[in-house]
């Protein structure tokens, strides 16, 4: 009896491993889950930014390299860190598909409207569990109401902080000036 139970348990484990190895395969497309994505020239934390895909934009996965993925978005290729991407579809509110403007030096301006996520009637049908709704839950609207209830809270410095930005070029120059030598590879 015990032997047959053991056999069943092992069989269950092995079959589930097979099931999950299938699920773990990287999907063909992923979604940018940060406010401003950074598409880099090489898979390194100090690499220059070639383009900035928007929140909710779908990117096509070309290649995996550690925590980096080579992606293509609106005809531009580059590397993105996996922490910027999700397998979920992010449903933006109508009219928020962005037109990218004001690309920095050495960057490609991504022209045209961002690809809006496909709906269930599209070629890639999605279930509700796979959709994240932008602007829902703890959102700008909730923050606004919370502020009304707590008028003493001051967000002025929070807003100011969000403007403190450092480019990869500034980081490289800073490290060089101080003889700070990054270990090979950078972010894992």
């Amino acid at each position, binding site marked *: 009896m015990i032997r047959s139970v*053991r056999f069943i348990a092992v069989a*269950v484990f092995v079959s589930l491993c097979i099931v999950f190895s299938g699920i773990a395969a990287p999907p063909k497309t992923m979604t940018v889950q940060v406010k401003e994505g950074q598409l880099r020239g090489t898979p390194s934390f100090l690499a220059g930014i070639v383009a900035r895909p928007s929140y909710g934009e779908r990117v096509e996965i070309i290649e995996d390299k550690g925590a980096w993925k080579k992606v293509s978005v609106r005809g531009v290729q580059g590397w993105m860190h996996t922490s910027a991407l999700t397998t979920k579809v992010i449903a933006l509110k109508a009219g928020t598909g962005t037109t990218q403007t004001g690309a920095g030096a050495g960057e490609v301006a991504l022209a045209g409207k961002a690809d809006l996520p496909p709906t269930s009637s599209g070629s890639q049908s999605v279930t509700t*569990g796979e959709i994240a709704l932008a602007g829902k839950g703890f959102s700008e609207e909730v923050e606004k109401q*919370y502020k009304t209830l707590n008028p003493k809270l001051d967000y002025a410095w929070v807003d100011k902080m969000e403007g403190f930005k450092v480019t990869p070029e500034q980081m490289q120059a800073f490290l060089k000036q101080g003889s700070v030598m990054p270990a090979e590879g950078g972010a894992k």
Partner: protein
Amino acid sequence: MKKSLLFTLPVLSLLALASCQTMESATTLATAIGQGAGVISGSQAQSIRKSAKAVSRSAEEFTPEQEYYIGRTVGAVVLGKYPAYDKSAANEYVNVIGQTLAQASDLPAIFGGYHFLVLDSNDINAFATPSGLVFVTRGLLRCCKNEDALAAVLAHEIGHIQLRHGMEAIEKARVTEALTTLAVEGAKTVGSREVSALTETFGGAISDITGTLINKGYARSSEYAADQTAVTLLRRVGYNPSGLVEMLTLMKKNLKAGGLDFAKTHPAPDDRIAEIRKKGPTYAAIQAPVPRQKRFLQALGNI
């Protein structure tokens, strides 16, 4: 006994393999198979399904966008306790080092990015919001004699963000409440009643996090884990991990007994140093190159 052990083993391995999203369906599948094989009873199966469902309602289900809004308000609360130190030379310097370390971390992309600010206080204190806002007091900066030590302070805070300690401070019941409200609402337009309910839950989550950050402190194990992440980050970027031990040594001298800052919320510097030494090699003393030390003194010499 043996039976349940034999069944538990593959289920546990399965739970480790499965992501949050798939956990529920996987458990349903596993329990169904287990039931079919007669290894577990129907009621046991039900209870396994139930607990897996409870587990899957974790803070990780909040989208980065929602964490961003939680973090902004946590930041505003911190700034209600300590005013900003409005000196751009100091803040710019801290941001270059902090943002470089953050980019080298395992969580470089965060919804609104990483941003650092010096707080105008003699207390020895620092805070990191789940959204990537990091605050350090002048009192804590005075525990740093060089750039490597400052990098250690910032890397420790990035460690808390990367390890999601802030989000974990939200009470489990509150997480379930918020996520359930959202799940029920789904794609529907959220009405004013739902916004009010969400705002109340939001306020609770903010209290949970700020209460931990400001008053209670994280678990000792979380502080030690953040120190380990700091050592890894320092090495990756090219700073000497001795900066962390040197900073803690000076902190020990500067901390005032009974203070409501790190004296209350963090393990004693000696304990942290002992833990760092236990887990890794002892690094050589810091010998900062002249330009590195010069810019440190220029930005923070009079902090």
